[in-house]
Each structure stands twice: as structure tokens, then as C-alpha cells.
């Protein structure tokens, strides 16, 4: 009661005490956040910051000292041809695996979703590569793609001289010389060494990447499809939509927008991070054609103990991932949330 009277008589004082109370509340709320914030800083931000600092040095593990290099590490990444190859390999991998695995994953999800029976069976089959450890599967691929005893080339070779060759040499298309086709020349000579030839290695790695990512993307899309209200399809039918393609364009694809943004981001980041197939199958070769960023980081920073240089690649890598994530955020906010 008396407090109230004073505060009415001295409004400024009341304001001041209010401010003090507010400041105290704020301080306390910061204190509550402190454990989370400090953990976040220690385990998430500090390592990145250290990597950022090290990327300007020539530090190696075990050394007590290091020299500042300025931007020399970065100049090497973008200037030297072997690191340009690294950027190319990563870019190729991402640009091939992301669209292909998303397109195939979406296609598989749509097909499975339209099945009345056996849907679960197909789901399990497509998901197998996701569940299996990629490193273990890489060994299987290594066998399968072996140039002479591998099942891939054996199968291809068994088609030589048969109708299969006749068909796949495309000689039956008017104006195509079958004898010059890839299949016929390979039959005459030999089938490629899929992982050992510069011409094929990155594409083979991409193929395995797609093989692995399709199942994962399919599951994400299947989840997305269950969220599309059935009434929208009914409304579309009433509105005059007849073909499956129109239905896909008017309802399914827009409703899958949030899923697609998520799938693209996840697949792109995972593709940037590809490492195990490269390590197990090609070790970055031949002629650095599969020298992807993750493998380069591993080789430089761990194998050769060039921590400073490895950090610089890591920072570039994080930069790419950050760009993808930010553009995802932008897209999500701008386009796909209704």
C-alpha cells in the first residue's frame, strides 16, 4: 500500500526500479541459456573458428609453432590444377547425383504410392542400399565392376555377337553405323575398367551414389505424399483435370514443395560429403578424376598432416554447404510455405 503511494508520488523512481527489475530478469534468462549457449559455442562454433584460423597457416599436428601464410592456401585451392580438379570432381558428383537421385526417388515414390499391393515390399527393396553400410557395399561394387572377373563386364561381354549387341549398337536406326557404336567397339576391343579409367571413374562413382541415395529420397517423398490431402485430388478431378500429368502439376508437385526443398538440401550436402566410395574404390584416382573435397581433406589433413591446408579446404567446403542451406531457407520462406 505504502509502496503504491510512493510510486504514484515519484513516477520516475518507479520507472527506474522497473528497469532494474527488467534488467535482472533479462540477466537471469541469459543465465538459463548459458549452458546451452556455451555448449553450442564450444562444440560447434569454436572448431569451425579454429579451422578458419588454421586455414591461414601452415600448421601440422604435433608442431608447437606455425607460420602465417595469408591467403596462400586458398590461392592454391583455386589456382593449382589438382585442386581445380577437386572442385570439378565434387561439382560433377553433386550436379549428377542430386538431380538423378531426386528424380528417380520421386518417380519410385509415385509408383509405389499408386500400388495397391506390394508397396511395402518395394519400399524395403529400395531402402536396402540406404541401410547397408556404404563401405561394405563398396566392396561388392568393387567385385562387380572388376574389369575381367566382374559380373558387369562379364554380362556385357556375353551379349557380344548376339541380338543384344545388335540392339544396343543402334545399327538398326537408319543412318547409324552400328560398328562404330560404343557397344560394338567395346566388344571388339574390351569393356572398360570402370573404376580405373579417367573417362569412366567419376561417372561410376556417381552411379553408385545415385544407387544409394534413391532409396533415401524415395522414403522422404513417400512421407511427403502421405501429407497431400486427398480432397485436393478430388477437387482437381471436379475442376476438369484428367491426365496424371496435369494432376501432378496442379496438386502433387506443388504440395511436395517443402519436401523437395528438404530433399534437395539433404542430398546436396550428403553428396558434397561423399567419401567412403572414393576411399574404398578409387582413392581419388585415376589422375585425380574422383578427387572429391572430403577425400582431399582426409588426404591432406590426416594422411599428409597438412592441417593448415586441410582446414582451408574444409572452410571452402563449409562455404558451399552454407550456400546450399541459406538458399534452402530463402526458398522455403519465399516459395513453398503456403
Amino acid at each position, binding site marked *: 500500500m505504502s509502496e503504491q503511494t510512493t510510486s504514484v508520488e515519484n513516477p520516475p523512481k518507479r520507472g527506474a526500479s522497473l528497469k532494474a527489475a527488467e534488467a535482472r530478469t533479462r540477466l537471469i534468462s541469459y543465465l538459463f541459456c548459458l549452458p546451452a549457449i556455451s555448449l553450442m559455442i564450444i562444440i560447434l562454433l569454436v572448431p569451425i573458428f579454429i579451422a578458419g584460423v588454421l586455414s591461414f597457416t601452415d600448421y601440422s599436428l604435433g608442431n608447437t609453432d606455425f607460420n602465417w601464410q595469408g591467403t596462400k592456401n586458398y590461392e592454391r585451392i583455386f589456382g593449382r590444377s589438382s585442386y581445380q580438379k577437386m572442385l570439378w570432381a565434387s561439382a560433377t558428383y553433386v550436379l549428377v547425383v542430386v538431380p538423378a537421385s531426386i528424380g528417380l526417388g520421386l518417380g519410385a515414390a509415385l509408383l509405389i504410392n499408386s500400388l495397391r499391393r506390394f508397396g511395402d515390399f518395394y519400399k524395403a527393396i529400395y531402402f536396402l542400399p540406404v541401410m547397408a553400410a556404404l563401405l561394405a557395399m563398396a566392396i561388392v561394387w568393387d567385385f562387380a565392376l572388376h574389369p575381367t572377373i566382374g559380373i558387369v563386364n562379364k554380362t556385357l561381354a556375353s551379349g557380344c555377337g548376339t541380338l543384344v549387341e545388335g540392339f544396343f549398337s543402334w545399327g538398326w536406326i537408319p543412318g547409324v553405323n552400328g560398328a562404330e557404336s560404343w557397344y560394338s567397339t567395346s566388344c571388339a576391343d574390351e569393356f572398360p575398367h570402370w573404376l580405373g579409367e579417367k573417362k569412366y571413374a567419376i561417372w561410376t562413382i556417381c552411379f553408385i551414389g545415385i544407387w544409394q541415395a534413391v532409396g533415401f529420397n524415395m522414403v522422404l517423398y513417400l512421407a511427403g505424399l502421405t501429407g497431400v490431402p486427398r480432397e485436393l485430388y*478430388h477437387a482437381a*478431378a*471436379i*475442376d*476438369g483435370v484428367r491426365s496424371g500429368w*496435369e494432376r501432378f502439376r496442379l*496438386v502433387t508437385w*506443388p*504440395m511436395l514443395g517443402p519436401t523437395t526443398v528438404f530433399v534437395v538440401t539433404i542430398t546436396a550436402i550428403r553428396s558434397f560429403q561423399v567419401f567412403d566410395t572414393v576411399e574404398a574404390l578409387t582413392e581419388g584416382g585415376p589422375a585425380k578424376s574422383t578427387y572429391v573435397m572430403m577425400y582431399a581433406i582426409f588426404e591432406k589433413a590426416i594422411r599428409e598432416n597438412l592441417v593448415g591446408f586441410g582446414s582451408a579446404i574444409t572452410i571452402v567446403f563449409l562455404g558451399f554447404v552454407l550456400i546450399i542451406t541459406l538458399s534452402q531457407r530463402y526458398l522455403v520462406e519465399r516459395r513453398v510455405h503456403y
Partner: protein
Amino acid sequence: MASVTIRDIEKSFGSVNVLNGVSVDIEDGEFIVLVGPSGCGKSTLLRIIAGLEQQNAGNISIADELVDNLHASHRDIAMVFQSYALYPHLTVANNISVPLHMRRLSFLQRLPLLGRFMPGHKEIMDGIKRDVDEVTETLGIGALMDRKPGQLSGGQRQRVAVGRAMVRHPRAFLMDEPLSNLDAELRVHMRAEIAELHRRLATTFIYVTHDQAEAMTMADRVAVMMDGDLLQVDTPSNVYKNPTDIRVAEFIGSPKINILAAQVDGAGKITVGDRMLSGLYSSVKGEDIQVGVRPEALTLADIKAEGLPCRIVHHENMGSEAYFHAELNIGGRVISRMDASALDTFATGQEASIVIDPQNALLFGKEGQRLASKIEVAA
């Protein structure tokens, strides 16, 4: 504009029979309301009419033409869904123009980027815009054209859904509980608006609801459905005054009709409890029957009056009228609806007697079928 004929429609989902032979003739320009409790198969019937669901037996014809093998998009009818089913990624203007895009533009003209370079594209788009503008003006949603459905209120979404249905002048409108997502006040308002829209368009409306008040206020004819059967199709006043089945009588009207057990003697005279209903004769004789009395045909009277003794257990003051809930001494509970002035005389806890107006008593057999009755005015 077209008549819709529904013949012996049967539908089952697995072993569950949802519709058992529903038939009704809907006239051109009629506003018919399908009403019934939740789960009785109203939406299923509507979806069969729309072509979104295939019936197991029976036929649907629109404008005297069988449409059973026509895809929904060819039946030329429009539907407003309970959830409105607006395309969330399209603006209001685009939502309303979808049916026109699908019908007027060719496949090539609809292509994403190239479409606009196809010959005739511009003229058609101009025509579509004119029609959309006309509809949005009628519905008063012109200011919302560039918003997405997520940025609209429930009532505005409902209007957009109606606009999407209206824009191509369909032969019939199907509406599946379009007002059930609105608050009570807006529901009453939209009720009038839809009825007015029907008058203006003079198109056949088939309207589904589980709210009997909506059915009674909007319909030319009410079709009462229950457990997959169409019990009665008649004007609202006939459905109320002359229900052919006790289930119809119980479903229509609020508060609910009072049902009392009664006996008929050999002469057809009816006794409820120990009171004879004077002047009312039943067509069946010497049986147990049920008497249905609307709350307004039950009046409270002084305990000493000629009537069924009871105790008032609850009363509700509705302003202009009052509802009295009473426990009969012979067992059972009834509701009486009287003028609010009765509150001066009667209150909760009081003993009173219930007087039945024989003129307005409805007789039903043990199975719920309506029985004929005869009134003999005492001279």
C-alpha cells in the same frame, strides 16, 4: 442446370454397407438438402454423384443422361468440399480460374512457359479473367484476389471455394457441409447467402449437412438419411409435421420430439400412462404403440389439471420462450416448449401435469413406422 436422378444406389466398403439402395429424383433448379447423422453415408452419396467414387449398383443420371461411366471432370458439376480443398500454392484468382484453365485452354496452351506463345492464348486468358472478375464481384472477394488461401479467414475461404464452383456455370452444385468449419454467427449468415445464391443462379443444388437447422432453413426439399437408407424426402414443413418414420421425427426438430409409450384398445382409443388422449383414434387396434409429441404440443398445467403428473427438473429461459424438462411420474422425461410467460407460473422443482395436444400427436408403430390417426372433435 439439370435434373439429377439417383436410382437404387448401393455402396459398400469391404463388408460394410454404406448405402443400401438410395433413390431420389432431384428436379432442375431444386435446392435439396441431404441431412442425417454423422456416418450415415451422405458424403459417400455426394461423391458418387460427383463421380469421385464408384457405386456398387444403381445409376446416376444428370439431365436424363446416364453418367455412371463418365469421369468426374466430364459430368459438368461443381463441388464445394467441407475442407474447401483450395490449392494452397495458388492465389485466390488462380484458384478460381483453375476450372476454366482446364476446360478452355488446350494442352499446349497450358504448358508452363511456352503456353503463352501459343495462338489464341491471350484471347482465352482475357475471357477467363472477365469471368473470374464477375464471380469475385458477386461474392465480394475482389479485394482478396492476390492472397493465398492460407492468408484468408474461414468465411473468405468458403467464398473462394464457392467462387471456384460458380465460375464455370455447372449443371449442378454439390456442397458437402460447406459451413461446418465456420463459427455459429457466420454460419447463420452464410446460410442465407447460399440460399440467395441459389435463387439467383437457379441451378440445382445438392447440399449435405448433419445440421437439421441448416436443412430446414435452406431446402426446397429435405432428404433425411439414416444408416444408408433414405427415410423421407419432402418439404421442410412436411418433414417436420408429417414424419413417416420415428427416426425422422427424432432427428428433425430441436429440442427433440418427445416419445411416449402408449396402448391402443379395441376401439382404437389411445392411453398414455393412465390418461386417455381424447378425440384421437389409432388405425391399429389392441397394440402397444409410440406417441410422438413435439415440445410445443406439450403444455404444462396445474398439478390438479387433467394430464400426466410430473415434476419439473430443469428449465431453460430462451428469452421469448422457455423449455421445461419434466420427469413423468409414469417414467420417462419430456421437454415442453412454452411462451416465456410460463416462467411466472412454473419453475424447476415444482410438481405439475403435462397436457398433450391430441391434434399434434404423431403415432408410430413399435417398429417406428408412422401410423394413421383419426381426430374426432368432441362435439
